[in-house]
């Protein structure tokens, strides 16, 4: 007769001083991030939140923010995915420089980006003038908000797409080609589905970055107001109590995006 034996594993709960110090330092940073956000959410009472949600100006600002961020993300997807693919797949003269250029908007202060965009797309510039005459006003118009959002968020999407494509072995596409696929068909049937989750994560990150943008937009388009500018406006005009409910509402929207982003993040790299 075979007797089943039970093995009991004892787990040592002793923690070394180095590990305890590391954990404490990490916990401090996490508290520093969570603390202010929780404080903001707790400050906004349900009544104040409801009142803010009923406020047409707040609703319009949040809707404008969400729509403009979505438009900027769509444009970034359209222009950035092919670029991310090229950067992941090919080494060409200047590809290193191109990567550096794409990272620039992340490292320059956003008011600087706003001023640069104003000079580049303002009515006085060749491009802004031409677009204006064609009926597409940039400064103090919605396209200006989208342009500012695109400028600050596109690098995140390109970087996400590049990393996602880099995880897909090019030989998978080659196999698909020998099985009768054209280049586009192999991309559509093999590479895109495998890189899709990573691209989507990059797009959501870009969307979140667009929603949170203030510095570049405030210089290019003060009105109509996006949520971040409205919060700044309420704070400077009416003080903290007026700004808190709007800020809390925007935070809730950003948190929803964050949760979606974490859920969609690739759980493992495609082989």
């Amino acid at each position, binding site marked *: 007769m075979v007797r089943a034996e039970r093995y009991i594993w004892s787990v040592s709960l002793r923690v070394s001083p180095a590990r305890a110090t590391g954990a404490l330092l990490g916990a401090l940073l996490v508290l520093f991030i969570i603390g202010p956000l929780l404080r903001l959410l707790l400050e906004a009472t349900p009544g104040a939140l409801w009142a803010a949600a009923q406020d047409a100006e707040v609703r319009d600002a949040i809707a404008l923010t969400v729509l403009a961020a979505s438009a900027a993300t769509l444009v970034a997807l359209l222009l950035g995915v092919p670029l991310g693919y090229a950067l992941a797949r090919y080494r060409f003269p200047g590809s290193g420089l191109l990567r550096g250029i794409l990272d620039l908007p992340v490292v320059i202060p956003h008011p600087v980006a706003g001023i640069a965009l104003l000079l580049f797309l303002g009515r006085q510039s060749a491009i802004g003038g031409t677009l204006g005459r064609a009926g597409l006003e940039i400064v103090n118009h919605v396209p200006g908000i989208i342009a500012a959002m695109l400028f600050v968020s596109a690098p995140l999407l390109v970087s996400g797409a590049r990393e996602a494509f880099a995880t897909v072995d090019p030989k*998978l596409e080659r196999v698909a*080609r*020998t*099985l009768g696929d054209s280049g586009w068909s192999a991309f559509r049937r093999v590479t895109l589905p495998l890189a899709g989750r990573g691209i989507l994560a990059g797009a959501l990150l870009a969307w979140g970055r667009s929603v949170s943008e203030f510095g570049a937009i405030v210089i290019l388009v003060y009105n109509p107001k996006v949520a971040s500018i409205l919060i700044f406006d309420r704070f400077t005009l009416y003080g903290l109590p007026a700004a808190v409910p709007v800020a809390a509402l925007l935070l809730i929207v950003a948190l929803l995006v964050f949760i979606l982003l974490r859920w969609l993040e690739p759980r493992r790299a*495609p082989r």
Partner: protein
Amino acid sequence: MIRLEEVGLSIGKFTLEGVTIDVPSGGYGLIIGPTGSGKTSLLEALAGHVPITSGQITLDGQDVTGLAPEARGIGFVYQSYHLFPHYTVAENIGYGLREFPSDARRARVNELAGLLGIAPLLDRGIEGLSGGEQQRVALARALAPRPSILLLDEPFAAVDPALRRVLRRELQLMREREGVTTLHVTHDVDDALRLGDVVAVLADGGVAQSGSPEHVFRFPNSPFVAHFLGSGTVLKGTVTRSGPSEEGRFPARFVSGSLGLEVVAEREGEAHAVIRPEDLLVSSSPFEGYPRNRFDAVVRRVERLGPIAHVHLELEGIPLLASVTAASVETQSIAAGQRLHVALKATAIHLL
């Protein structure tokens, strides 16, 4: 039929030049060469993934040099199989059959899966498949659209020796059944000898030698090929004529260090002598009269390889390799340290 004529390609600093290989229709060609010799690049050029810089590629009589990969009618199996991770086994096998009606597609997938013993896996994802299962799925996927050409990139590199023997047999059966012309790259000399009708040895940016595996193995045209294929002991020395010529060949003496051998040569001077293990006769009792080359050597090691054994000998500091039957090792009690009588026919020594 696969014909590469004077094909050249360039990838970064690596170049291949003047590669000419012919595999007859329904035949099995092998490209063998050391790591980094450009075997896989050449296969990818044949498939249209890597552009060639010169020459012509003809498949079944059609010049495909400028054609896209999907227009070449090729099946490709990579070393790591590269199954599509987002598809099931059945979807992987049926990937190249999307133009087929669904009934025909299902029938073809089931047929190949049945032949390769992977029918129970069809609805599974590729996660968790063993190396052998992945190899079978990759082979079925490549053969499903009935290509006329099958390209194999080291398909047995990732499997253990026992499974490799099984897969070799299955591959032979499948390709004979499908009547597909095959080109297989490998660095495994065993693959070349067991599978190929034609073998090309790739080295130094080109084809070092090509021909039937038996011929290339027995008559390597350079010390490199002899060393790489393990054709036997390669000795560097000098050939000196010792008799008159007959049909361009003459009796001669080959001297390498302290070892002198009677040989049949075509030219005098510096040369390499290849002594194949199976041509070196060993015995615990002396050879009488014949053959002309007779000497004594010390056994350094006996390597048992199933029905045969390799006897590593040393003759005045020169290592020699002899191949004998395992039974011979037993009956003659051949063991390390033993002194053996060694004999070698002059005509069995291949001079380079």
